[in-house]
């Protein structure tokens, strides 16, 4: 078990409205959201002494992203808020939400900072997301772009097609997942899809992007920002809202170069992330009330179910067919039900439900949750608890 288990807690948050394109730069939306999170925790901005985030993406037109306009780094936030930080960290990998939370939790646990602000800002760039006018393709792209193969939807399509062919999963199976996510997203006021659920018929009729991936298997790019305040379990007692503790965490990494989208590699490496999570948290799968899965592309849901041991290899669609109620996996609405907020919805849902702040969406008697992000063999997962374990 990790020595830091339940030594660090979330004591406040704020989430912005989401927009296809906000009328203000993403930096402005993020500063406003950070100030609201600081106030929500009952703090003054001068008390924040640590910052971290993961700021990769968006990509469009092959342009270099501009801080405050396209992306928002922690340094930029500290500058704008005019706060001297004792600790500034930045996460470089793909699972930015668990990655940032793990940095923040360990910074607090080690005493590097007392109050860490973790934010995430996502923006929808001008032009088309992932479009790239390159005329020469170097590095990994030399094996893809000269063939006309480019962009994450097509990469996901290859491994999802392989999963369907190998294990007999159908588009109807995935349709049920996406409809469930949109049902929950339609109940979340800041969601891009608020009051806009999806029917299975509409899913099956949707425009295809790269077979078997349709437009509703991809999260829609939006502008949005979120911020959370982390502090020690000791200090957390003195804040206005019920703390939610970081109970454990795990991250994945590739064991083969360029193998992020390989089904074989995912199935080989993903269970290591699950194993590390149970070891770090001391929890078992049966202890988890809200295992909130990541769904930035819908097929990633299957990989998390395998990684966490809810089913065996290639059995995720069969496991889901057997579930009468899918709420506990998807109540966050995910990225498909909120818009492209990457790993934010599962984390925010864990916080809101475990602190009792989910309002009319509150689920009774939930004490533990998991917030997954990215692929299990590439991103990470954090376990949260409403009680100090």
């Amino acid at each position, binding site marked *: 078990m990790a020595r830091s288990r339940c030594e660090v807690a979330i004591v406040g948050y704020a989430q912005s409205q989401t927009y296809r394109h906000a009328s203000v730069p993403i930096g402005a939306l993020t500063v406003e959201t950070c100030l609201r999170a600081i106030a929500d925790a009952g703090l003054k901005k001068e008390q924040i002494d640590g910052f971290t985030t993961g700021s990769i993406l968006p990509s469009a037109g092959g342009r270099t992203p501009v801080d405050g306009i396209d992306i928002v780094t922690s340094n930029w936030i500290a500058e704008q808020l005019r706060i001297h930080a004792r600790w500034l960290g930045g996460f470089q990998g793909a699972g930015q939400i668990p990655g940032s939370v793990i940095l923040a939790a360990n910074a607090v646990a080690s005493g590097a900072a007392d109050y860490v602000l973790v934010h995430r800002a996502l923006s929808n760039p001008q032009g*088309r997301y*992932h*479009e*790239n*006018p*390159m*005329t*020469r*393709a*170097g*590095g*990994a*792209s*030399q*094996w*893809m*772009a*000269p*063939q*006309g*193969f*480019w*962009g994450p939807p*097509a990469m996901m*399509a*290859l*491994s999802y*097609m*392989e999963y369907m*062919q*190998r294990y007999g999963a159908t588009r109807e199976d995935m349709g049920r997942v996406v409809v469930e996510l949109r049902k929950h997203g339609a109940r979340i006021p800041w969601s891009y899809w608020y009051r806009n659920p999806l029917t299975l018929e509409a899913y099956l009729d949707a*425009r*295809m*992007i*790269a*077979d*078997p*991936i349709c437009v509703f298997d991809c999260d829609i790019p939006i502008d949005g920002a979120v911020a959370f305040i982390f502090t020690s379990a000791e200090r957390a007692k003195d804040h206005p809202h019920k703390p939610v503790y970081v109970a454990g965490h795990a991250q994945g990494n590739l064991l*083969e*170069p*360029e193998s992020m989208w390989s*089904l*074989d590699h995912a199935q080989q490496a993903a269970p290591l992330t699950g194993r590390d999570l149970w070891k770090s948290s001391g929890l078992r799968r049966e202890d988890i009330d809200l295992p909130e899965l990541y769904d930035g592309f819908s097929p990633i849901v299957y990989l998390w179910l395998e990684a966490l041991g809810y089913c065996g290899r290639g059995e995720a669609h069969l496991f889901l067919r057997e579930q009468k109620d899918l709420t506990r996996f998807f109540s966050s609405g995910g990225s498909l039900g909120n818009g492209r907020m990457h790993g934010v919805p599962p984390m925010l849902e864990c916080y809101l439900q475990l602190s009792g702040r989910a309002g009319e969406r509150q689920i009774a008697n939930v004490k533990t949750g998991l917030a997954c992000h990215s692929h299990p063999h590439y991103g990470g997962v954090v376990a949260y608890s409403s009680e100090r374990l």
Partner: protein
Amino acid sequence: MTAEKPLPLPDAISQGFWDAASRHVLVIQRCGHCGTLAHPPRVVCANCLAPVPSWTFQPVSGRGRIRTWTVMRQSFLPGFKADVPYVIVEAELEEQKGLRVLARLVDGPQAAFKAGSPVETVFEDAAEGFAIPHFKLAEA
């Protein structure tokens, strides 16, 4: 102006692949220590961890079987927008289990194929000094 299709930008470990492709020969990187084939070319052998200087490029049959595919209905590369829909396959070459190569299937989305269908390599002369390998359905 018609958008250009991207050409490969060879590097220190891929130059040999593209040089051979320009002569319409498919080559695959082979570890000099243990004989393991690797594609795309890599810096360290996955099998024996031997580094770059031991690698050579070995001509291969170009024959393999489709493992997975997608039909591209939209393209994020402007030069390919007029070509949609087109098929991209990952085929496992007959020389080694798990040795996969990604390429366009020139037969297109109307052709009858499935996982396991046999393919062979064909080359498209894309520009002076550059040929791009693609797959074509083959007799079983």
